[in-house]
């Protein structure tokens, strides 16, 4: 189970942040909890251009990919802090990020009330039509006297509070797993393909079972993503330790949603050129996760040239680079591939596309590499 936990204050020091860090540690066997800070978001204003809100986009993506959300709220003037309210406004203005998302509310205060009034208002806000969240009923986590509850290492010292947290979190775990979106999506553990794994597919050049196809794709030293002809993200190979971590929640999403607004025009131009047929391949070299990563976009076409989609083919080529440096290919003829291939088949020349197409490809490749900036690195 993957959860996002939102720190509901922009203050530098916050017991609500400490509580979420404690929950992340305490419930690590049950859930992978990622902590997000509302401080990262700009103050909400309808008049700000949405396309420039990269941090809001990032929040939206992370919450979309999570099975549930925990919100830790302080209490300011009997309500939630403006900084948290502003975050909720971003997530509900022209977006339905929180729609049907299971939400658990917790809160810590210095006083005895433990943010009870703020939590009451937060429940009402989350149930408003624009947010439309599935708020965990009952199960109140109201932690008062914060300064006495946590020790200097951030551990909860009161066993009754630990029990209250455990009871509520167990209820939330069950609540998340009964959520419709979770049921429709299934668990992230996709070891089995959907139709019978014995089914064989007959290709012109042989046959493979569904299971074999799945495992071949997962075993390739390159990871594969497929965007279908309708620009929907329709598949990713389940390769271990992927460079681009994908989530099953993204399957079926318009591919535009998988990219930050700033990067999208460049990606779109690649898809457009594939659809037009002006080029078939764009490659980029990027440092990712400390690796030398080679990213390729290939237009996938049927035998008549009709566009079926785009395959993103990505892998860590550090090993290949090392082999080259070690001289493993020294003395091999230059351009060996084309020449050998041609002589074997006794063909004069491999077919070349016309001149303009070659130029277009060169241009697009340059264009793509220009935006190999950290923006892309962080968000893909």
């Amino acid at each position: 189970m993957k959860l996002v936990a939102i720190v509901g204050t922009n203050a530098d020091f916050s017991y609500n942040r400490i509580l979420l860090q404690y929950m992340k540690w305490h419930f690590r066997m049950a859930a992978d909890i990622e902590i997000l800070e509302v401080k990262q978001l700009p103050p909400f204003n309808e008049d700000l251009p949405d396309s420039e809100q990269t941090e809001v986009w990032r929040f939206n993506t992370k919450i979309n990919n999570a099975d549930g959300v925990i919100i830790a709220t302080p209490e300011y003037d009997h309500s939630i802090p403006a900084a948290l309210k502003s975050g909720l406004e971003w997530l509900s203005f022209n977006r339905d990020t929180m729609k049907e998302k299971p939400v658990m509310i917790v809160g810590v205060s210095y006083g005895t009330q433990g943010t009870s009034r703020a939590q009451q208002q937060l429940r009402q806000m989350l149930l408003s039509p624009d947010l439309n969240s599935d708020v965990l009923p009952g199960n109140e986590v109201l932690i008062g006297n914060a300064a006495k509850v946590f020790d200097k290492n951030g551990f909860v010292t009161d066993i009754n509070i630990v029990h209250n947290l455990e009871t509520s979190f167990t209820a939330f775990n069950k609540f998340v797993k009964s959520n419709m979106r979770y049921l429709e999506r299934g668990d992230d553990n996709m070891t089995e393909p959907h139709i019978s794994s014995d089914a064989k597919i007959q290709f012109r050049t042989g046959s493979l079972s569904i299971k074999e196809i799945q495992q071949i794709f997962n075993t390739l030293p390159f990871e594969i993503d497929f965007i279908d002809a309708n620009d929907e993200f329709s598949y990713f190979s389940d390769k271990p330790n992927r460079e681009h971590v994908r989530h099953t929640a993204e399957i079926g999403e318009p591919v535009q949603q998988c990219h930050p607004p700033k990067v999208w025009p460049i990606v779109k131009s690649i898809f457009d050129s594939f659809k037009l047929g002006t080029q078939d391949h764009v490659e980029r070299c990027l440092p990712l996760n400390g690796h030398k990563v080679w990213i390729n976009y290939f237009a996938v076409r049927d035998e008549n040239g009709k566009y079926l989609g785009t395959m993103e083919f990505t892998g860590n080529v550090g090993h290949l680079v090392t082999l080259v440096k070690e001289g493993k290919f020294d003395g091999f003829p230059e351009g060996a591939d084309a020449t050998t291939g041609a002589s074997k088949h006794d063909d004069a020349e491999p077919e070349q596309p016309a001149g303009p197409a070659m130029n277009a490809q060169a241009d697009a490749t340059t264009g793509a590499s220009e935006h190999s900036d950290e923006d892309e690195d962080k968000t893909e």
Partner: protein
Amino acid sequence: MKIEAIVGSNKKLSYNRKLLQFISKHFTDDEIHINEIKDIPMFNENYPAGEDDHDPELITELAKRIEDADAVIIGCPEYNHSVPSALKSVIEWLSYRIHPLGGKPVMIVGASIHPQGSSRSQTHLREILDSPGVNAEVFPGNEFFLGTAKKAFDENGDLINQGTVGFLEQCFDGFRIYADEIHKFK
């Protein structure tokens, strides 16, 4: 009465601003000054980072005007059944280091493009203004909800429905008496 009115929205187009503009125009016996909150930074305990603790200049100015006024009117939109963060942020500033709303008579009005006219938001705002850090004297009853606000104003910015104007006048008469009583009590 000398009244400071606060537009509870940071939007360019706000029907709450239009409502307050109408109020300031209509009640000529009162001196009503309209305050905008758009440029006030988001409340943060640690603002400004790395400097001596102090409030933003715009907040200090607003607080001064509120202290000099007899009463405050807030025009409150509704976002997610509650108070917009932009307005909540201002109230947080006005209840952190300084407390200019303490003991100050406050009237809440609200407009929205939906029929409810910000009713849920106003209920939250009452709770917020009633909290010990703010301690405002909120005018009870007299709920002024201007629903379907897109159709409520004519081209001069005047409220079209005379019944609505009548109810607003009734609320205002009550508010003047209430504010007087509060000041006597102090």
